[in-house]
């Protein structure tokens, strides 16, 4: 029973729910601010994403005539809930360890697919042709990046499992415990292909500029979310904010979870790592590249990240 309450609290308060949402929005604020500074602008206030969400709460939700109303209104909710649960699975070294019942890498991988699927369903339920284009692009992109992600996860799991004398372990707590005693995977040459593949994966998963093809606002007018307004649009913003925390947290857990033993220190180091990962992987990449075409992105993913991921899996199994 206490077990279930702990899981519930993790989903609703920390590290899911309120905490993940606030952190995701704050990261977005920092991202926009730093981006503005890099372009020598002043930029919005750091709290801007919070203002945006509150603003959207005051607007009206419009349902297009061509849309399937139930699906249209409730899919974003599914996305938000899945991301809140996913946020409760992400371990924070020496601060939070997910309950053994849920803290599994495979569960996290499945949950991470849901926002993409939600976008696809939302786009097609809205009845807009732009939504339909967004749907097909999202699907193509998902096919391209899910493969490398699964292989990366498998590489990490097998490396940990073999290190611990078994075959493969998908428990996030074990993965972190192993790295704490044997050193982070980031400094393990055997894991470098996997690290590189992950660096390609997360901008695509988060829809950052070279890979924001499904939502390209200048071509398909934000694609799947074109018809959403007011509170339902706010749900999408919440979903992507929490997703950012989940994906970056996953990266930290898989490759560099080392942190001091204390509670405050652990949290602080985790936040710093997250901010660095975001600034390098998202802000700078976003500003310095242009958007790819969907076919280019697809080929790109099937070439480099997939190759790297396969290589990492092979190396891990052989070494």
């Amino acid at each position: 029973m206490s077990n279930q309450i702990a899981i519930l609290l993790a989903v609703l308060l920390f590290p899911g729910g309120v905490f993940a949402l606030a952190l995701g929005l704050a990261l977005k604020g920092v991202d926009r601010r730093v981006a503005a500074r890099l372009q020598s602008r002043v930029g919005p206030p750091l709290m801007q994403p919070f203002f945006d969400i509150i603003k959207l709460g005051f607007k009206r939700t419009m349902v297009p005539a061509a849309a399937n109303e139930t699906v249209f209104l409730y899919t974003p909710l599914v996305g938000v809930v899945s991301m809140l649960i996913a946020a409760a699975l992400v371990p924070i070294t020496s601060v939070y360890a997910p309950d053994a019942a849920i803290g599994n890498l495979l569960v996290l991988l499945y949950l991470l697919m849901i926002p993409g699927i939600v976008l696809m369903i939302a786009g097609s339920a809205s009845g807009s042709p732009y939504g339909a284009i967004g749907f097909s692009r999202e699907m193509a992109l998902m096919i391209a990046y899910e493969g490398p992600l699964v292989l990366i996860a498998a590489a990490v799991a097998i490396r940990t499992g073999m290190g611990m004398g078994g075959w493969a372990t998908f428990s996030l707590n074990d993965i972190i415990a192993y790295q704490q005693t044997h050193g982070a995977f980031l400094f393990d040459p055997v894991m470098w292909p996997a690290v590189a593949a992950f660096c390609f994966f997360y901008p695509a998963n988060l829809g950052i500029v070279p890979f924001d093809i499904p939502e390209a606002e200048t071509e398909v007018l934000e694609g799947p979310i074109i018809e959403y307004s007011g509170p339902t649009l706010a749900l999408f913003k919440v979903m992507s904010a929490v997703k950012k925390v989940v994906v970056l947290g996953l990266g930290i857990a898989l490759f560099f979870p080392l942190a001091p033993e204390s509670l405050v220190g652990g949290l602080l180091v985790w936040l710093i790592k997250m901010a660095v990962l975001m600034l390098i992987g998202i802000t700078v990449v976003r500003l310095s590249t242009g958007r790819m075409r969907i076919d280019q992105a697809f080929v790109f993913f099937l070439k480099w990240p997939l190759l790297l991921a396969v290589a990492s899996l092979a190396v891990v199994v052989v070494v």
Partner: protein
Amino acid sequence: MGLIPDFKKIATRSPWLYRINAGSCNGCDVEMATTALIPRYDVERLGCQYCGSPKHADIVLISGPLTVRVKDAVLRMFDEIPEPKVTVAVGVCPISGGIFRESYAVLAPIDQYIPIDVNVPGCPPRPQAIIAGVAKAIEIWRERL
């Protein structure tokens, strides 16, 4: 008690802009893009963001004299923007037709068809004037929320 007005005040710090080109010569649109893109003017300071879909917009910037052929499209698009919204007419075209004033193809002034809240005259107006117009629109928007 005091929470809703507070939230409304916060909400007005996030105006999202949407541009409608009602047959403009593109001069005003270039000027609006400048307003958004050139570091010196940076509307993002006000929390503004240009958005791609009319359904996300709060403040509508309309340029051009509303030509006969785009009228239906513009009116439909205008209806797609959720309330509460504020309209800013950019340039002298929406006010009087500007240099297209006596053309058979033009329906200006635009406020016969769409309620306009702020006029920003000029052909094209300077970015500073557009930002001033947006700031004015934010004030009006605060009352409507």
